[in-house]
């Protein structure tokens, strides 16, 4: 897998997460004419969340393609383009709509390479804005990434920063396999340093966002951000948390997590998806069947989404997913009381 990084002298500016994705798309399209972007309203409208922005004007209607509202069809179109020499990047307007495209993603994209004995590859990228917090209610707020972590043949990433949003996108476009990128709606406007030159963040590598001794907090996407903020607050209470940003759910960088747990002896996993069968379940199970298990001084703790469809009411909506306060409280209990 390509791991080329930006040259040190390359300029690094502050960009928003959405701008970083757009820059990555533009650079990929510039560098490789096989790359194209398509999806509902990605053209003149600039994308439901403004991610494609002016790309339509820069690359024209043959490289930035508005599609009819046909999620199954466009997912299949990505498969067809990918197996015949193109590198499609598909935007699904809200990740919830992937429910309409599961057939093509799971039965076709994920399986074709294997099912055809390795004779075809499916280098497609699907971008999926997910997550709650915008008052969009139950059908527009889900975090469904865990489903895809269950499907061999797919790769699944979840960037938390503008830097990773661009770098993982470029890595995904390079990848000869289908890659799903779960972006978070609340992160699109967050800003951070982004190197100007193209660079790749390798798929399957977690990032240690903070080094600590007392417990390991694992999260991804917006939960990695909240975990880091929680860790800063915990430091004031003399709790030294190590924060791991997963970045990739499939493949999962288990080695980084296990090494951390061997050091801190405590594990708190935070994720926005419904707790039951969410990604934290797998991480917990992997620890529990690994030798890191022997290092645990406290039961593994998970903070996940409540067992409820996302409510519209903003107070309920917030209560349904882990917030910074919840992470602080759970970490504190885990360290102080040995049980979250």
């Amino acid at each position: 897998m390509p791991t080329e990084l930006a040259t040190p002298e390359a300029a690094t500016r502050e960009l928003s997460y959405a701008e970083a994705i757009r820059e990555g798309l533009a650079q990929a399209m510039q560098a490789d004419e096989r790359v194209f972007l398509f999806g509902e309203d990605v053209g003149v409208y600039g994308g439901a969340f403004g991610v494609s922005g002016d790309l339509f004007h820069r690359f024209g209607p043959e490289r930035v393609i508005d599609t009819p509202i046909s999620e199954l069809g466009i997912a299949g179109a990505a498969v067809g383009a990918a197996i015949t020499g193109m590198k499609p990047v598909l935007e699904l307007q809200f990740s919830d709509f992937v429910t309409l495209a599961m057939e093509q993603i799971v039965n076709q994209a994920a399986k074709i390479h294997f099912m055809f004995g390795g004779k075809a590859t499916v280098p497609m990228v699907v971008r999926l804005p997910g997550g709650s917090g915008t008052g969009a209610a139950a059908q527009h707020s889900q975090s469904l990434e865990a489903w895809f972590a269950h499907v061999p043949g797919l790769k699944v990433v979840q960037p938390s920063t503008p830097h990773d949003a661009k770098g993982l996108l470029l890595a995904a476009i390079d990848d000869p396999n289908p890659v799903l990128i779960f972006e978070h709606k609340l992160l699109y406007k967050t800003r951070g340093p982004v190197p100007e030159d193209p660079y790749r963040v390798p798929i399957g590598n977690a990032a240690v966002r903070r080094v600590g001794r007392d417990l390991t907090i694992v999260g991804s996407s917006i939960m990695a951000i909240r975990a880091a903020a929680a860790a800063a607050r915990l430091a004031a209470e003399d709790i030294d948390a190590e924060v791991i940003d997963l970045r990739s759910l499939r493949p999962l960088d288990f080695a980084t997590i296990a090494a951390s747990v061997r050091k801190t002896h405590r594990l708190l996993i935070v994720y926005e998806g419904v707790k039951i069968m969410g990604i934290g379940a797998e991480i917990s199970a992997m620890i529990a069947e690994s030798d890191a298990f022997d290092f645990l001084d406290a039961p593994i703790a998970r903070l996940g989404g409540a067992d409820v469809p996302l409510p519209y009411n903003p107070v309920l909506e917030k209560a349904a997913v882990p917030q910074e306060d919840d992470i602080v409280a759970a970490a504190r209990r885990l360290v102080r009381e040995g049980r979250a």
Partner: protein
Amino acid sequence: MASLPGSRTADAQAPERAELAALGDDALRVALSRMHLIRKFEETAEASYMRGLIHGTMHLSIGQEASAVGTTLKLERDDYILSTHRGHGHCIAKGADPARMFAEFFGKENGYCRGRGGSMHIADVEGGNLGANGIVAGGLPIAVGVGMSIKAQKQHRVCMVFFGDGATNEGAFHESLNMASIWRLPIVFVCENNKYGMSMDIARAMAVPNVADRASSYAIPGIAVDGNDLPAVVAAAEPAIDLARRGGGPTLLECKTYRLRGHSKSDRNLYRTKEEIETWRDKDAIRRLEHELVAHNRFAETELRAIEEAAHKTIEQALEFAKASPDPDPAQLTRDVYAD
């Protein structure tokens, strides 16, 4: 085959056209009142949203009132409707209480969905409104089941399901019309063709001039009507409702109309011209009908203003009701996930 009756403008000298003559004063009063309620409801919702009183997003149907009101005018209270993300009009037209609708917008406990659903999911099950839907074309397959249910229970009800022009490119549209056709289900499929999906012009999204032309794939009647002409809409909908009620199966009714507001709060109208919007503003269904009624001496101007005033008053009171309503109890976050 589709047929689009030319839009008629009032001519005081000429006799009343048949579509108008078919409507008694009471029916017209109800229709006008509902159109005003919808218009004022949405203008008020918009203002509340601008002032930060409502969160989330909302999709306004300002400009489309004649379609919602005209199609439903001849429905009975125990007939069903299924609505869309742009559903306030359908909801009010079917007889919902604007106060409880506003309460829902404000996320209040006595909103139609107890604050859990919000604008995109308002349902008034008792009033026969089986819910708005956040998924484009999501209501169509449900309508098939409602039709099966009506038939199995040997009821004389009708199910009317609304959807946009964009929705007709979803697979769900095709599957649903096919099943309704082969089983001759009591369904009226109402496509509110407002010329755009979110931003994609219908002319770019499909190759046939009328959505109604697609009825031929299912051997059912397809009718296109000027959706900004209330009497014409009623005249087109009534036979479709009757046909369904008589066991004659479904109809595809296309109301050609226009949304004067953007798709949602975040729309910058990049995909259409100011002139186009102005042209359609001139075809405003409410003013047009009022003008015709006055020209034919069906109503005095003062009476029309009284109808409008009453509607405005209702909406103002509805807003106050909503503001004064109690919030949900956060401790009840996971209530009603399961029925028991």
